[in-house]
C-alpha cells in the first residue's frame, strides 16, 4: 500500500505539473487567439448586437405576462428544430450516413468475429477512425452554428441568469477603470457607500428605490459614462455589464452599446442577484435549454430525415 501510495503521489504530482503547464499553455494560446480576433470580432459584435437584441426583444414580447419558463421552453424547442434543419443543410448528410453505416458494420463484425483477434483489432481501429470522421463531419455545421448560438445564449442569459433588483435591495456597481476619480449618480437609486477602490475596479454600493430602467451615470474626469440599472420588472432582461472594447465582454453582454474608447473605462458592472428558479434560474436555464433543445432535435430527427 505504501509503495502504491508513493507511485500514485508521484503520478498525481506529474499530472498536476502537466495540467498546470497545459492550462497555462492553453491560456497563452487563447490570449493570442483572442488578441488576433479582437480587431475583427469587436467591431463585428458592435454591429450585430443591436439588431440581435432588437430581434430578441420582439421575439420575447410574445411571452409578455407568461412565466419565464414558458419563453425558455418554447425557445429551446424552436432552437432544437432550427439546429436540426441547419444541421441538415450544412452537414455532409451522405458522408454521415456512410460513416454511421461503417460504424454499424464494424460493431457487427466485432460481435460476429469475437474469436478472431485480427478482425477484432482491425474493426476497432476502423471504428475509431469512423468516429473521428464523424466528428470531422460535425465540425463544419458546428462552426457555422457557433456564432448564432453564442448570440442566442447571450440574449437568453440576460433574461434567465440574473433578475432585476427589487425595490429596497442593495447591490454593487463596479467600474473597471485606470484609477481615475469617479462619481456616480442616478435616478431610482441612492448611493450608500463608495467609491471605494479595489485592486482592479472602483465600487459603489447602491440601493434601488424606484421601479424602472434607470440611467446610472459615472463621471470620470470630464467624461460621463452611463449604464442601465433595472429595478423591479419581473421577467425583464438585465444587462449586467456595459462593455467597452473587449470582444468577449461584448459577446456575453450584448444589450448595451459599448462604451467609447476615449472614456478609459473597460466596463461598468452591476452585480444583479442570480435568478433562483430551478427551471430558469442562475445556471439551471442552460441545463433546461440543452436538455429540451437536444430532446426536440432527437425526437424530430426522423421527421426531418436528418442523420447525426
Amino acid at each position, binding site marked *: 500500500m505504501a509503495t502504491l*501510495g508513493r507511485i*500514485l*503521489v508521484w503520478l*498525481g504530482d506529474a499530472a498536476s505539473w502537466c495540467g498546470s503547464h497545459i492550462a497555462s499553455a492553453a491560456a497563452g494560446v487563447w490570449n493570442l487567439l483572442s488578441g488576433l480576433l479582437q480587431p475583427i470580432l469587436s467591431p463585428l459584435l458592435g454591429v450585430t448586437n443591436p439588431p440581435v437584441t432588437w430581434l430578441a426583444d420582439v421575439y420575447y414580447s410574445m411571452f409578455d405576462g407568461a412565466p419565464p419558463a414558458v419563453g425558455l421552453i418554447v425557445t429551446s424547442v424552436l432552437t432544437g428544430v432550427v439546429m436540426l434543419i441547419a444541421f441538415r443543410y450544412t452537414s455532409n448528410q451522405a458522408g454521415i450516413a456512410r460513416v454511421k453505416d461503417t460504424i454499424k458494420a464494424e460493431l457487427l463484425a466485432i460481435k460476429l468475429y469475437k474469436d478472431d483477434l485480427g478482425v477484432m483489432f482491425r474493426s476497432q481501429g476502423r471504428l475509431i477512425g469512423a468516429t473521428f470522421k464523424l466528428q470531422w463531419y460535425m465540425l463544419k455545421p458546428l462552426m457555422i452554428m457557433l456564432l448564432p448560438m453564442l448570440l442566442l445564449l447571450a440574449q437568453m442569459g440576460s433574461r434567465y441568469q440574473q433578475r432585476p433588483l427589487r425595490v429596497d435591495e442593495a447591490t*454593487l456597481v463596479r467600474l473597471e477603470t485606470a484609477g481615475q476619480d469617479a462619481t456616480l449618480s442616478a435616478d431610482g437609486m441612492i448611493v450608500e457607500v463608495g467609491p*471605494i*477602490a*479595489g485592486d482592479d475596479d472602483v*465600487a459603489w454600493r447602491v440601493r434601488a428605490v424606484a421601479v424602472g430602467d434607470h440611467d446610472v451615470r459615472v463621471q470620470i474626469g470630464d467624461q460621463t459614462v452611463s449604464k442601465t440599472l433595472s429595478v423591479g420588472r419581473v421577467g425583464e432582461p438585465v444587462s449586467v455589464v456595459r462593455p467597452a472594447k473587449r470582444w468577449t465582454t461584448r459577446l456575453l453582454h450584448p444589450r448595451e452599446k459599448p462604451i467609447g474608447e476615449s472614456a478609459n473605462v473597460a466596463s461598468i458592472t452591476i452585480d444583479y442577484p442570480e435568478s433562483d428558479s430551478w427551471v430558469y434560474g442562475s445556471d439551471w436555464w442552460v441545463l433546461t435549454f440543452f436538455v429540451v433543445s437536444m430532446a426536440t432535435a432527437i425526437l424530430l430527427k426522423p421527421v426531418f430525415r436528418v442523420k447525426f
Partner: protein
Amino acid sequence: MNLKRLILCVVAAFVMATLGSCRDQRKAATDKKVVIIGFDGMDPRLCIELMDVGRMPNLNRMRQAGGFKPLGTSIPPQSPVAWSNFITGAGPGVHGIFDFIHRDPTQQVRPYYSAAETHESEEGWHVGDHTIPLTFPPFNHNPTQTLLRREGKPFWDFLDEAGIETRIYDIPANYPPSESKHGHMCCLSGMGVPDLLGSYGTYQVFSEGVVREVEEGGGMRKPLTFRDGAADAEITGPMNTAMNKPRPATIPMRIFRDTKQDATRIDVQDQSILLKRGEWSDWLQVKFELEMPSFMPNSHASGIVRFYLQEVSPTYRLYMTPVNIDPTDPGEQRVSEPPDFVATIADDLGLFYTAGFQEDHKALSNEVFTDAEYHRQAEHVLTERLNLLDHAMDTYETGLLFFYFSSTDLQSHMYWWRTDAKHPTRSVTDARRYNAVIEKLYERMDEVVGRVVEEYGDNSTILVMSDHGFCNFRRQFNLNTWLRETGYIQPRGASGILSPSINWTRTKAYGLGLNGLYLNLAGRERDGIVTPPERDALMDELTTKLLAVRDPLDNRPVIKRVYRREEVYQGPFVEHAPDLIIGYHRDFRASWATTLGDMADAVITDNDSAWSADHCIAADEVPGVVFSNRRIAHDAPALIDIAPTVLAEFGLSVPESMTGSNIFETHATLAEK
C-alpha cells in the same frame, strides 16, 4: 407483449391505489395538531410579573383559563440536560446527559462535551502528507465522525412510527439529528451544532490593534497591516484532518479602507462587500478548499459568514461571525433530518445561522462587542428565527410542530439583572436599561404566542414551555479551590485537576462541569483511591461541609442542596453521573474556572463577566414555565411530562421508557387508568 403490458398496468394501478389509500389513512391519523413553542430559559417569576401588569396579554389569557404552571426543570437545570428530559420524557439516568461537560474516568478526567462527541479517524492509508481513511471493504477504516451521545428514545420516534408528521426546528441536544426511520419526522438541529471549525462558535476579528494572532475562548483576533489603504488577511476555516499534521484551511481576503468615507471594502473569493462603520453585511458564502493528495481532487467545505465593521479609524476593527455551516450546501455535516431539510428551508428563506449558539455571547464576554453591539447581533438572530417560524407555520399542516427560541436564554444570560446591586460590567443605569431589554423580549415572545394562537388556537393543542428559569449570577464558587482548601484535592499547591500538579493518589474528590462533583473512586477512575465502602461516608461528609459554606462577604449560604445521584436519578446510565450534584442558591454558581476543572486563589469571588445571569443552581429555584390553551390539571408538571402529554394528545400510549405523565390529567385520573 400486449398481455404483459396489460398486467403491468393493472399491477401499477393496484400499487397506486394502495399507496393512495395508505396516504389517506395516514392523513386521517394526523388531523390532530399539536404546536409547542420552546422558549429557552423563560422564567415564571418574570412572566407572572409581566402578566400581572398586562404586558403579556396572550400568555395571560392562557393563565386565566387554567393553562399555566411553573414547569419542574431537570437536575441540574442545564439546557442539554433539561432538553434531553423533554425529548425522552425521562430523567438523566435514562438519556445519559448529566451536565454540559462529562469526563472519561478511564483516562482519569478527560473532559468532553456531553451531548455529542467527535471521533477522529485513527486509521487510514498514509499517502505522502495525508492519511485517507478507506471506508470500504476490506479496509473498513472509520472516518472522522460526530456521534450523538444522548441515549433514550426521543418522543418523535413514537410519532414517526405512528405515521404522525412531525416538524422540529432548532431542537437542542439533538446533534447530529436522530434519524427518522419512517420518514415522517423532519428536524433542524439547534444547540450543539458546531460551526465549520468544529467549535461552538469562533468569531474572527481583524484589527490593526492586534500585534499577533491571538486565540481566546470563543474567538480569534488577527492582526492587520494596511499599506496604501489595503491589507491582506486570511479567514480561518475547518481543520484538514486528512493531513498527517492537520492544519486549517484558509481563504485569503483583501481589505481596503477609506477613512474619509469611514467605510471599507472586503474582497473575498470574487465577491465584494462595501460597509460603512457600524454596518453588518448580509450573509456571504465562502468555500474552503481542503487539500488532498495530488492524485485526488481536493475536497471542499462551504460556510457562511457575516461581517460587521466596528471601526475604520484610528484603529481598524472588523468582526466576522463564526463560519456557520452553509445551509444550502452542508456537505457531510448533518444538521438536519432528512439531511436536505436544511437546504429546503434555505431555498425558501435564504441563508441563516446554523450553529447551535447563534447569539455571540463570547464576543460580549471577551469585550469584542459592546452591550449595544451584542444586542444588535442578537436581534439579527431573533429576526432570522421569526422568519424561520413563519416558514415553519407556512409549511405545517398537521401533526406536531415544535419551534425553539434561544433568544430568551442567551439574551437573559447577558442582560438579566434584577437587583440594585452592582453589575459586574455595567453602571446601575445601564444594568437597568439592559434588563428592560429582557422584559421587552418577553413581550415580543408573547406576541409570537398570540400569532400561533390566532393561527391554530381553535383546533389544536398549543404548549408554550421553557426548560428552566433565570436568576442573577453575582458570586462564583470555586469548587476545586474549596476541595483543595479542605484537603480533598492534594497537594495544596495544585492548580487544576487537568494539571500535572495534582496528586491523584491523595485526591479524594474533584469538580467538573457546572454542577458535578465526582469522587476519585477506586475501580472507576483510572487512579481512584476512594474505596466503595468509604463512598457513602465521604459523600455525607462532603454534603455537610458544602451546605455549611457561607459567603464571607455577607455570610449568606452558598449551596442550597447537594443531590446524591442515587436519590435523583434512575435508569441505565446513572453510573456515568457525578456522585454529587451541587444546587447553588440564587446569586451563586460554579465559577468559570470550575467548569473545566481549574482553580482560583479564593473560594468565592465576584463574577466579573458580562455573563451576569444563570440558572445552573438548585433545580427548585429556577423552574421553567408551561402554558397551554387547555387547562393543565397536573399539580406539579415537569419537563419529563411534556413528551407523554404529546403522545397522549395523538392517542398514543406512554411507553415504559418515559417516567413523566400527561399534564392535562390529574394524578387521580392517571391512577384510575
